[in-house]
């Protein structure tokens, strides 16, 4: 039972801190998971062409 304003404020403060801590942990996990993904892969790009047919410029 919450007998007075003081107790209610304490509960509310505790709830807000709990939510903030939870959000913080979630955000931290998400960022570290992205970091792991980026470090675990490398990107390789082929700049490729075909059938240019001597077009030194796009129109001739």
């Amino acid at each position, binding site marked *: 039972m919450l007998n007075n304003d003081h107790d209610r404020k304490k509960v509310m403060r505790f709830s807000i801190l709990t939510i903030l801590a939870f959000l913080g942990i979630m955000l931290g996990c998400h960022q570290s998971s992205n970091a792991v993904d980026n*470090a*675990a*892969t*490398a*990107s*390789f*790009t*082929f*700049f*490729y*062409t*075909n*059938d*240019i*047919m*001597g*077009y*030194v*410029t*796009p129109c001739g």
Partner: protein
Amino acid sequence: MARRATFINDHIDSTDFAMFIDAGGFARGGGDIGKLYTNYLLRGMADLGYTVFNLSYRDFITGGNILKDLSNKHNVEFIASNTFYKDNGKPFTEPYLVKTIKPHSSGKSLPVDKIRVGIVGMCDEYGLLFSKQIKEPMLEAKPPLDFAEKLIAQVRKKADIVVLLYNGNYAKLKPILETVKGIDVTIMGGQYYMVTPNDHFESIIVSTPSMGKYGGLLTLQLDNKKKIVSHRNENIPLKEDMQDDPAMLKLIKEFEEAEKKLQDETIYSSSSH
């Protein structure tokens, strides 16, 4: 090419490794004007970083010797894995190439420090690859399916990524992709319009619309064992509002002057007869 240079500059920094590669069909045609176009095109593409070109039957129109000269002149490599001299059966190029690619920028921590790309280049079967009026040893392209399995198996042992460059009919390429294992990426020219995102082969297959109006961009994500975990392909239109690269504009000006000079000489030569 001035827009292609801008397109490359715009995208190069967003990848860890890069390679510039052409699936064939780059030559303009026969005669002095055709040779001039092909020469400047290869010079420009070499400046952009292109190192490997597949050869289609159209690229042989002025013979094999001129291709050897252009390869030496511009420091680029041609690949024609199923093309041989008709008289002695010797191959026209190496049967395959293996290129070791290093990260193009340093400083970023990567799971791999180099990637070996194996390349096989093929075209459709042709008994005579150029006119008999060209006085040099004749070349022929043998049936590609007869060579594909053996060559891919050989290059697979030496490379992390295996690429097949193919120029010709889609119907001739299809049985290769259906039966030969170990091709990671296929870049197609010739019947480029037959390649669709609905194609389902073990190999990724890509192509661009013709005449150099698009830039093909295939990005692979590789894990620490150099296995492809995902890929993304884009065809970027080289639109008129794209900024021209100043260095490439200089080369194009030189080309246009050389073209005008050659045309004037041709007119003078034909009018003086």
